[in-house]
């Protein structure tokens, strides 16, 4: 990344430290507690997100992985209050976001950036790239020299400044995603939420975007919440990983803990499905097949919601809902038998 230094970014912008308590125990930048979103229809209630809790320290990165439909993207939208949570709390720099009014929430938004999955849908087809990137600047830094700042932002994400005059339809998917990142960074956020930022892209382009995000995180001291269904991608980007299944986190830990010593059978199954590029280190038939489809969130199984697909399921699993807890292992797992299951770490 040959981006120019970006002096006015992140911490240099205003004072984002409101509500911080310097000196004492560092509060998490983001603390999510019991977050839930239930969609009610006339007949049933869909629990898209059902009690998600995690913390994210400043400057760190957390990956949220799971199959499609498990509530990852809904979690992102709840944190940003693009959707209103049914229950739970979202604390940003110690400040409760769920209690804020629309107007108060709007003022916090300069601190929160998001990059969406589909770079075709996330850019307004009728705006030039300059206006797309300038949008956040106009709102939060109206005094700034827009042309100069837009040029800086475009260069920061690896696009030539003259692209400002182009329209989204003239760009490739990877270039569009760079624009989306530039737009998200324009107000100078400290937290960047990436919702499947590379899953719509070609594999070769995925690597470029992932490297860009890694560089940006380092240069701008960003905190990143990275949402993906792709464990290989998350492993590349994130220091900590949370695995979601049917609206809940079933396992959370550091990259090493989760990847090298998975304690939830679901995590183990996901890991065994990751393709290994080296034929000498293939899975040797240790691929864990999951039985059936992900259960309907409209009618989840009793007890452990994973038990219908789990080959280790026992009677207890149908009765008792396993909480996410340290169960004699080194990181929290939502499985009754976390300490005992013979789960093989993948190569």
């Amino acid at each position, binding site marked *: 990344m040959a981006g120019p230094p970006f002096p006015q970014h992140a911490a240099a912008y205003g004072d984002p430290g409101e509500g911080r308590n310097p000196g004492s125990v560092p509060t998490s930048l983001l603390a999510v507690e019991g977050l839930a979103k239930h969609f009610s229809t006339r007949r049933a209630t869909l629990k898209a997100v059902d009690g998600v809790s995690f913390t994210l320290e400043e400057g760190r990165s957390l990956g949220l992985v799971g199959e499609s439909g498990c509530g990852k993207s809904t979690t992102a*939208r709840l944190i*940003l209050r*693009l959707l209103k949570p049914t229950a739970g709390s979202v604390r940003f720099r110690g400040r409760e976001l769920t209690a804020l009014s629309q107007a108060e929430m*709007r*003022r*916090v*938004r*300069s601190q*929160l*950036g*998001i990059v*969406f*999955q*589909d770079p075709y*849908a*996330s*850019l*307004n*087809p*009728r*705006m*030039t790239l300059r*206006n797309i990137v300038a*949008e*956040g600047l106009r*709102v*939060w830094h109206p005094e700034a020299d827009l042309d100069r700042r837009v040029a800086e932002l475009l260069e920061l994400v*690896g*696009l*030539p400044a003259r692209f400002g*005059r*182009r*329209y989204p*339809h*003239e*760009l*490739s998917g990877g*270039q569009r995603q760079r624009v*989306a990142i530039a*737009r*998200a960074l*324009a*107000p100078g956020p400290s937290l960047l939420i990436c919702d499947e930022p590379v899953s719509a892209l070609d594999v070769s382009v995925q690597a470029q975007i992932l490297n860009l995000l890694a560089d940006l995180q380092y240069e701008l001291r960003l905190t990143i919440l990275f949402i993906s269904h792709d464990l290989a991608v998350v492993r590349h980007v994130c220091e900590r990983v949370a695995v979601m299944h049917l609206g809940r986190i079933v396992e959370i830990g550091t990259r090493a803990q989760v990847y090298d010593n998975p304690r939830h059978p679901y995590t183990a199954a996901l890991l065994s499905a990751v393709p290994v590029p080296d034929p000498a280190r293939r899975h040797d038939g240790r691929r864990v097949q999951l039985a059936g489809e992900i259960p309907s969130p409209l009618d989840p199984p009793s007890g452990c919601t994973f038990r219908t697909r789990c080959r280790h399921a026992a009677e207890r699993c149908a009765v008792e809902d396993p909480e996410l807890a340290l169960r004699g292992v080194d990181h929290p797992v939502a499985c009754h038998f976390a300490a005992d299951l013979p789960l093989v770490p993948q190569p």
Partner: protein
Amino acid sequence: MESLASEKPISPWRLALRRFGRRRPAVISSLVLAVIVVGAVFADWIAPFGAVEQNLDDILQSPDGTYLLGTDTLGRDNLSRILHGGRVSLLVGVMVALIAGGVGTTVGLLAGYYGGLIDAILMRLTDTLLALPGLMVVIIAARLLGDGVWDVVLVLSGIAWMTLARIVRGKVLTLKEQEFVEAARALGVPARQIMRRHLLPNLVGEITVTASLTVAAAILAESTLSFLGLGVSPTHTATWGNMLGGNEGFVITAPWLVWAPGLAIVITALCVNFIGDGLRDSLDPTQENL
């Protein structure tokens, strides 16, 4: 990175214009309509006779070299009246489209974007007005108001905006779920700016098309009203509608008096509709072909 040709960027508007140019009916209609508009606007200079000029020696003349479209019972030149009358018809059409377009867009935008109570109130109002029999409402309203041009514009605008409001609301409902609108919300862009910068530009196709259809409908409605004697009074000015209505008794004896304004109405409405169709096709951004 530099995979793009160094061609100058083409704006979506430019692409739309290009696509419009490929649609023959729309282009021809634009030319015909342009002729009609010029004829109406510059009627004072183009028309061979004055708007109310009478030649009592030449009553009910059939079309000839002097009177290209004949004369009426008062010895007025039919062509000159058509040209002057076009002003009112076109003015009513355009004004109704503008007013109804503005009201319909605003109502649809607010209802679609805010949802909830605002949506419920605005849409029930729209439904109620849509449920009323249009012609009856117009007739009653026309009685209550006057018989001037602006009274007619007001009355017709009052019942013309609902369709657009529904269309805009529907499109806004899908647009606001799109990620670029979510992205703007996530950036903290105020609602008014989201509507202006993100929603409106993406509604231009729907609005233009519906408004152009409204132009044709308003011209026809004005004619109907005038034909029924409820539109612009012939004592104010000639309109295609009141020419048609005033001369209905001469269908057999002096058919040019009926044919000329009738054809003027039909051709204008047809042109406007063709142009509307062309706009709909060319403003649709999903059509990528040039």
